[in-house]
């Protein structure tokens, strides 16, 4: 069964460093998303991406964040100059098309900023 794949599963980084979280969505999917879950809190929307551009972004998704689909298969989330409060689980999700109701989630990347 096709699935969304995220790498790495766990990333530890020093405060102020840049990190890139990687996702491989399901191959025929067109809509891509990043969500964040701070430990013990709810899952929050960060950004949606369609047709090589951002469709919507939340207030959390400030200039520190960027997304890219560099090669037609990977979908990356870059966090510049990480802060302690960026420590969270980051989930990638994809959806096939606009009439499809279900978004498939990856297993998440746990980011720890020290």
């Amino acid at each position, binding site marked *: 069964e096709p699935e969304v794949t995220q790498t790495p599963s766990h990333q530890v980084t020093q405060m102020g460093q840049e990190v890139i979280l990687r996702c491989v969505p399901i191959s025929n999917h067109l809509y891509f998303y990043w*969500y964040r879950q701070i430990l013990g*809190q*709810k*899952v929050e929307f960060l950004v949606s991406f369609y047709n090589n551009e951002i469709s919507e972004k939340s207030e959390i998704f400030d200039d520190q964040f960027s997304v890219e689909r560099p090669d037609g298969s990977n979908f990356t989330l870059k966090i510049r100059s990480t802060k302690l409060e960026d420590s969270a689980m980051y989930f990638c999700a994809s959806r096939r098309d606009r009439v499809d109701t*279900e978004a498939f*989630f990856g*297993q998440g990347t*746990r980011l720890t900023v020290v």
Partner: protein
Amino acid sequence: AQTVTQSQPEMSVQEAETVTLSCTYDTSESDYYLFWYKQPPSRQMILVIRQEAYKQQNATENRFSVNFQKAAKSFSLKISDSQLGDAAMYFCAYRSVMNRDDKIIFGKGTRLHILP
């Protein structure tokens, strides 16, 4: 803006018994989707069940069923014959049908414990 509220941070149920998780939401839209996601200790988000708001019939997936009350904006999840593998965090979620606003809005979750 839409909101999703889960008022039960934690619940426990005896194995083989039935449990109902509550969820309410707020929206001004007339058509939308509602979901229940399960997050086991592995932290992966797994879709349990979904409901289209225009459908009056409550969705059912094996031991999982919902009670969708559109007027009351209530969307509860019933798990029958609870099993140890059902222990997880359960998130109620909302998504607009409008294509430009397709983000999923999650509640804070209910942690479900299954007692052997």
